[in-house]
Structure formats: C-alpha cells, structure tokens
C-alpha cells in the first residue's frame, strides 16, 4: 500500500483488485498511508479467472476514468491521538470497561475484545504502571526504537529496519512509548522484572503475519532466564509459570493494542492459532546444553552474558513429536523396538542418530526452517554420535531435505516463495526454469541456519518441531 499511495500522490491514478473479505485491511492500510479513498474492486475467491474478470473488468477500468467524488478529493490530516488515561472508575467498572467488545462483521460476524485477548486482564491503574516501570531505567515517554539493524522477511513488503528507527507496531504501523509497553505488561500479568524482556519483544514490532495459520513465539536466552525463574523444564510450553505465561501474553496484547491487530479486520489468519491464546514464551536450558553447543544468544552473535529474545513467526505451530519416549530409550539403551528396526541396528546399543527418524517426514508438510526442541538427554546423544556443534545439526537436517526439483515444484508454497520460479536457484546459481526435473534442491530453504535447536523440557525423551525457523533477535539488556 505505501507504493500505491505514493503513485496516487504523484498524480498517477490507481485501482486495486482484491478479495472482498480483505476490504477492511486494505482500507485501514490506505488510511494510514494517506489515501483513505483508494478505489478497490472485488475479485472472487471461487470463480475461475476468465469468468471472474467478466464481472468487474469494466468497473476496474472505470476506476481509472470516472471523475473523483467530493470525498475522494478531500485533504487534511489524520491524527486521532490517544489519551494517556483511558478510563476512570472503580476496579469493578474498569474490569468491565477493559473487557468491552465490538462486533466485527464479515468475515468474523461475532463480537471481539477491544483491549484484551478475550481473557480478563489486570487493570492498568496509574499506580500499577508506575510500579511496572521500575523494571527499566528507560524513561516512560521514550519511544520504542531499534537497537540494531533488523532483517525483514523477504518478499513480504516490510520496510527495511535500521538501528534507531522508531519501531512501527504491525499491522497499523503505530508507535509506542515505554509506558505504553508497560501498560500492556501490567494487563498481561507481568512483574516489573519482566519488563526488559517485554520491551525487547516490543522492539520486534509484534508482527502477526496473516492469511493462513500463523502464530508467534518468543524464546528467551541468557542469564535473564534464571533471574526470572522461567520454566525451562517439564511443561515449559504449557501453563503454570508466572514468567513464561505473562511474557508470552504480553506479546499478544501488544499486537492487539499497540499494533491494532483485529481478526477479520487486519489480522487475517484464517483459522487463527491456539498458540496465540495467551501467547507463547519459552526459554532454553543453557546450563544443560552439551559441551560444544552454543546457547541461542551466542549463536545469534551476542555475548554469553547478554540476555536476548528471539521472536519467531511460525507457519503453523507445533507440528510433531514422532516417537514414543519408551521406544526411544529402547533404541538407545539396547537397540530394540521400532526405531531400531527402522534404522537396522537391532541389538546394537546406542548412541544412534535419532534425527533419522524425523526425516523426510518433517519436510513433507511445509518448507523452510524449523525450530527443533529437544530435551538435554537427546541433545547429548546427538553429540555422542558426532554432532559436535548445533551448526552440524542444522547442516545435516538441511542436507536431508534435498529432493528432486520435480517433487519440490509439486509443493504449494514454493510457487510463492520462489516468486513464480522467476529467480535464481541458489545451490546451482542457475535460473529455476533452466534446471532439469531431477536436479536436487533443498526443501528447507536456502540456508541451513534457518533451523534452530532449542534444548529444554523435562526428562521424557521427546522432541517437537515448530515450523517457522529462526527469528529476529533483540537484546533484553538494552532495555534494563
């Protein structure tokens, strides 16, 4: 939309063809880009293209020639502003106020919470927010900015983000102060000592992705994990921790309140995602990493004593835990059970490379990097079979993902990710369209480092995978 707004401002008339259910999102984008009356034509989600265009081609062309209405000629400034104090009343009244809903028409057709994720929130009284702000040395009115250059997702239209840029919270590209982040942290149930982590998450802009089944997750690494007593053991992805839970929830509340994300208006994940119910924050067990495996902060380029968050945009959440813990133990202890039969190591005690059980199945459903979570015992087994570093795990997984181009082209997402096969295939340096069907390409993407290993969890031998791969990282210490 910034592009179309630029063209309209330059005197070049434009018209958008899009699906009707995206109307709210297009209009909001048009408004924040200064051309609220941009003309939109609706394509069909179901009619074949040649039939569909018959219904609107004349209107589309008319949108370039039909004279402007008075409203379309209006100029001015859009500056709604936000009061610092949103509500005054008793706590009972405030609870009702902060739980208010607004009816969202098609494509939702249900009331949705205006200020919350649907669950009750801690009321952000001025006193509670002041107490929360004691968790940081940053001033309440300080605007959230980036502390380092941050890569953006390729091909998704996000502007390049540079150090010292103001963070624009998605999807409405709003800014926020430290105090506004603290308000959301209070509402999420955070404690003052959590605030630097929440501020680091805020630095990400709290993206929500769109369209399909997206979710967001935050992994914390560094000394702050122990300082906050985060749960990195049994149930670390589940309920119970008064650190993991509220910090994860703060992400979602910031997306809703700072970014303005509303399902069916500008948050178009078709099914939503249960990982976003209450949010998802976890941490690695860095003190149980095998010798030679770097913690997430170090492999992300930070000092081992610097605490960070990695903000992961997942493409579908947790996708698998493939074998039984008992079966795993049988494999490693004495070479028995289904895993041993599959690996043809019956009667041969471990260690064995259990990653072999995951492939190629984990690549069948979705392309790109994965977040692979495993308990410490399983990480040690990988070291024992020769994976002396995490990088070796990433590289091995990536190499297992190679498949003939013909097979890769029969997947769905690569049409999009590979830009209609118009570019260059990176392992060969040749145009996609010139490669033979049997040329082997990595379904995991162009870089083994898109994978991430997280060591955490309890004692049961289990690993889980999250699609989405490596995310951007942000310093927690910068916000202390």
């Amino acid at each position, binding site marked *: 939309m910034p592009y179309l707004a630029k063209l309209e401002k*330059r005197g070049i*008339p434009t018209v958008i063809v899009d699906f009707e259910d995206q109307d709210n999102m297009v209009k909001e984008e048009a408004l924040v880009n200064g051309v609220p009356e941009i003309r939109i034509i609706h394509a069909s989600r179901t009619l074949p*293209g040649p039939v569909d265009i018959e219904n609107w081609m004349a209107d589309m062309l008319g949108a370039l020639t039909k004279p402007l209405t008075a409203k379309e000629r209006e100029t001015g400034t859009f500056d709604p502003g936000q009061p610092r104090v*949103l509500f005054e009343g008793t706590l009972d009244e405030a609870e009702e106020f902060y739980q208010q809903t607004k009816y969202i028409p098609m494509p939702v057709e249900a009331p949705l919470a205006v200020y919350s994720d649907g669950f009750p929130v801690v009321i952000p009284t001025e006193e509670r927010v002041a107490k929360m702000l004691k968790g940081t040395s940053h001033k309440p009115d300080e605007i959230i900015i980036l502390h380092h250059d941050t890569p953006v997702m390729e091909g998704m239209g996000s502007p390049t983000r540079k150090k010292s840029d103001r963070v*624009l919270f998605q999807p409405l590209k*709003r800014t926020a102060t430290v105090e506004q982040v603290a308000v959301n942290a209070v509402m999420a149930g955070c404690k003052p000592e959590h605030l630097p982590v929440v501020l680091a998450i805020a630095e990400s802009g709290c993206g929500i992705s769109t369209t399909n089944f997206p979710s967001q997750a935050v992994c914390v690494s560094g000394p702050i994990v122990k300082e906050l007593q985060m749960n990195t053991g049994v149930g670390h992805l589940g309920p119970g921790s008064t650190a993991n839970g509220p910090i994860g929830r703060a992400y979602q509340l910031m997306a809703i309140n700072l970014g303005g994300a509303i399902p069916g208006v500008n948050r178009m994940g078709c099914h939503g995602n249960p990982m976003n119910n209450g949010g998802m924050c976890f941490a690695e067990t860095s003190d149980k990493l095998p010798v030679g495996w770097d913690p997430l902060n170090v492999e992300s380029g930070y000092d081992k004593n610097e605490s960070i968050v990695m903000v992961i945009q997942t493409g579908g959440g947790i996708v698998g835990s493939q074998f039984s813990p008992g079966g795993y133990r049988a494999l490693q202890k004495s070479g028995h059970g289904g895993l041993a039969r599959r690996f043809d190591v019956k009667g041969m005690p471990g260690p064995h490379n259990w990653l072999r059980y995951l492939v190629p199945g984990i690549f069948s459903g979705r392309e790109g990097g994965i977040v692979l979570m495993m308990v410490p015992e399983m990480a040690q087994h990988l070291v024992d079979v020769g994976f002396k570093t995490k990088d070796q795990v990433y590289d091995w997984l990536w190499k297992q993902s190679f498949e003939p181009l013909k097979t890769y082209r029969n997947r769905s997402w690569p049409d999009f990710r590979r830009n209609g096969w118009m570019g260059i295939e990176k392992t060969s340096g040749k145009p996609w369209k010139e490669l033979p069907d049997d040329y082997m390409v990595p379904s995991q993407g162009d870089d083994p480092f898109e994978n991430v290993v997280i060591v955490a969890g309890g004692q049961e031998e289990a690993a889980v995978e999250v699609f989405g791969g490596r995310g951007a990282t942000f310093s927690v210490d910068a916000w202390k």
Partner: protein
Amino acid sequence: MPPRAVKDKVYKCLNPVGNVVPVEVHSLAPRVDKLDGKEIWLSITGEPDVTIALERRLKMDYPNVNWKTKKTYTISPVELSEEEMKTAQGLIQAVCW
C-alpha cells in the same frame, strides 16, 4: 469482601493503545479522461488464475491502450522506476494490495 472505601476507590487507568503516526490525507490522483492512447501499467502480484486471463483480455479488448506490465508472484509489487513514473498514466494492482 474489601471495605467499601477500597471497593469504591476511583482509579485512573492508562491506555494500552499505540500512537497513530499523523498522516497527511491526500486527494486521489485525477483520473484520465479515456484509456485509449494512455500508458497504463498492470502490476501483477500473484493469483495467476486471474491475472493471466486479465492481462490477455486487456490487451485483446483494448488494443489502443499502451499496456505495460510488472510482475511478481509475491505480495510486494515490483515498483515503477522514477523514469517509468514520469510517463505512467494509470496503474492496476491485481490481485493484492
């Protein structure tokens, strides 16, 4: 039960909503009087089922328009260059925004 004084205490509650960056609202660009003879760009962003048919129909049914095309499969349009903007007289963005 909390004492009435506590229960009835009035609090100032702060706003969690982010700040809209003020924007200058612009009029749409003046429309062209007719398409014939004009340089109109079709900016294709995915949905080939629609855009292949659309491009073909436009060129077939409106041969007097100087049709030009930018194409990508992603949602980020391939933008006109500064030089191209100097002569562009209209742009259709399909199917995306």
